[in-house]
């Protein structure tokens, strides 16, 4: 690995999109990447994207792993999660079930990363279809507070808050990487960690 030549910016933040199938993980990713909204739904297997972004005046690379909501195998899911440094946990506000599933994803991520301060954002997608809302803002915010994470509502279709969730997460990752616990957790790909006081705020942004 040491043979590799660094032609690109050294800082790479690895973001993982998690959530049930059909909640719009890929749509969010594609909107962020290419500024386009894909109407047709095709289940993702596992795609990764990379993009240069300027974050607070600094050029960084974002590496997005768009996982399959339908992945059946916990072992494989673990392998995806282990490679991530920050997580966008997406549900659809018009689907209560997908909101419930976030609990499982959260647990699985914490189990794999073994640090509850791991950069993590709860994302309620499809806010453009608010008339079909099944998950209330309060409900979601409550859960986010329990987890000590932020809750953001987005629309992949209207691009509302799309950049925000990614940039917010990138900032968290950046900060997290500077803490000893984070460095340790991420450099070793996270198996052990200590419960270090974390600066991550729990500012909730609602639409």
């Amino acid at each position: 690995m040491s043979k590799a030549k660094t032609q690109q910016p050294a800082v790479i933040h690895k973001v993982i999109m998690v959530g049930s199938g059909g909640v719009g993980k890929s749509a969010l990713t594609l909107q962020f990447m290419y500024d386009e909204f894909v109407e047709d739904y095709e289940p993702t297997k596992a795609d990764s994207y990379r993009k240069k972004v300027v974050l607070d005046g600094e050029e960084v690379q974002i590496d997005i792993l768009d996982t399959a909501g339908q992945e059946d195998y916990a072992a494989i899911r673990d392998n995806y999660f282990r490679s991530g440094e920050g997580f966008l946990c997406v549900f659809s506000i018009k689907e209560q079930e997908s909101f419930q599933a976030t609990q499982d994803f959260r647990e699985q991520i914490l189990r794999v990363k073994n640090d509850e301060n791991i950069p993590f954002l709860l994302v309620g997608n499809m806010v453009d279809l608010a008339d079909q809302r099944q998950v209330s803002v309060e409900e979601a915010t409550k859960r986010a507070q329990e987890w000590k994470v932020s809750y953001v509502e987005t629309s992949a279709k209207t691009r509302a808050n799309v950049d925000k969730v990614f940039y917010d997460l990138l900032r968290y990752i950046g900060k997290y990487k500077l803490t000893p616990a984070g460095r340790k957790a991420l450099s070793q790909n996270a198996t052990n960690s200590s419960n270090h006081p974390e600066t991550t705020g729990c500012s909730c942004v609602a639409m």
Partner: protein
Amino acid sequence: MTDGLARILSKPTYESEQFVAKLSANGEDALLEMKSKIHMLNDETAQALKKNVFKNYSQFIETAREISILEGEMYQLSHMLSDQKSEMTKMMELSLVSDRAIIQGLKGEEEEKTNPEEENRRNLAFLLEKVEGCSSVVDAPGRQLVHDGDLVELDAETHAQIQRVHAFLLNDSLMIATWIPHRRGPMRYRFQGLYELDGLAVVNVRDTGPVKNGFKILNFPESHMYQTDTAKAKRQWLDALEDTKKKKALRDKQKKEAAMRLAEQQLQAALASPGEADLSKSFTDDKEESVDRDYLSADWLQELPEDLDMYIAQRNFEGAVDLVEKGYDYLTDCPKGPALKEFKARIEHRVKQLTDGLMNELQVSPERSLRGGPRAARRAVTQLIRLGKSAQACELFLRNRSAIIKYNIRQLKFEGATTLYIRCLCGVFYSSLSDTAKEFIKAFPGHYGCYSAFVIWAKQELQSFVSIFKRQVFESKASLSTIADCVLLARGHCQELSTIGLDIEFCLDALLDISIQNVIEETKDQLIEGIKYRAHDDVWRPMNHLTQADCDKYIADVATTGYDLTPYIFDKCFIAITMNSIQFSKVIVTFAEDLLKLHSSEQEDSSADVITTVFKAQITHIEHSLQSEQLKKEHVLILKNAQFLLEVVMDKIKTLYTKYNVPFPVKLQHLSSHYRKLKASK
């Protein structure tokens, strides 16, 4: 004196000038004396040289012969090697072809399904040829190659190129092999890693940056990124991976269900009969997979299959068997589980190879020289027994021995007298047999089950020996004496064998019985024919030797056959016994002796019959002569002859019987009382 001179001359410090100066100082006579001495020494040395040359000449010839044998073997060896080489290249071509066939087969999935298991195994074999250090991968049962291709490994972070690799997608795992640059020979890749498909996360890397056609393989804590040449190739890889994973999941599920069903059945069975409860318990052990994985992770155990491969390749069979035993010993303590089963299967595969190798060692092939002999066979046999293959070892060992016996017998050249040849034949056969017996006892100690196989083998060998024996002895129209000698030889050897606990004499007798009977009958007929022929011309004249000296000479001559004719001399040069009687007495005694040599308890009656019949024939001749009018005046002479035959000759036969420790037949005894009858009838 000359010895002293020789010593002086051959001294390392000898200097000719000094020596000559010293000599010449003593004057002419001393010089002349020295000259003659030197001449003598010269002659002696020449002689010695000649002798040495002769001595070394025979040695030279011997050495040359050895060298020529060695040369022959070397030639054979090099021939075999070149054969093997061509075989190897042929195999390589084959595997390359099948390699292509697999990739084509991937497109037509049905084709693949119809492929029998064995073929898939062979397809995997080419991996061994191409990839260094992957034998453990190839070994797992039921493994097949699904897809393979060249890839470029990239750094997952920076996307910089790292190296060229070749990936092999198997039906249950993905093997990555790194490309070895500048390498000659078939090994073009080195084994890098094998990833179980179960936990393998595949990520399609979208073409967002400068890197195109990439995909990632995540298997904590490793993550690798690979790049294909074309988008199509990447699609193929992703599809193949996906497809194979799905198929594997399906298979696993089916297996699990089957296991569940089995467990249920066992549980029911256990409930039905509480005695078998531990059966279901043993099944729960299966779930302790992690335990047995730990158990199997010992370094030496992990390397065991490859070490075995190495030992087998080096023909270090002892080492291999040691290792197998060590492995099995270790594994008996190991909790049972699927991992253990798999591992055992790997070892068993090796054991099979090992057994094949050992069996091959014992196999008799025409081009293989038998020089190795029994000791070489013992080595292989011992290892086979240790592997628990005593039955095969026994069979092969005995087959090997058969070949050796056959070879040795063929080496014998049939020249000269039959007895001589039979003596050699018996020597070779019986010593081989007893060697084998001893070797067998040494090689199979405690394997009593194999002993019966040995006995059967010995009987078979005896049969083939007897067939050769018969051909040489009975079909060559040899005389009864020769035959008797030969049979006696064979029997003697059989008795020797019985000292090591192998009694095959009765078999020999049974095999020879008919032939012996026939030849006795034939001889009897010939003898009677002879008696009749001579009786026809018999004029009952005493032998006239003309002079006393000649007569004495004749008496002495006959005395060597054991008859004392002195009581029958009259008129100094006449003997009252006719030529015919003497002839008969000689023949009948030889015949009796032959019969006694061939004697066996089964033939007791028949041999008594035969000798009585022959004797009777002569007696009948005497009776006829006595009744004949023309021979009336010879009655005294005839009676004297009759007395000679029935008393002296019969006594002689009697002593022979006692000598051979055989009861004198009653019928002959009756015959001996005949003389009195004849006398009375007079």
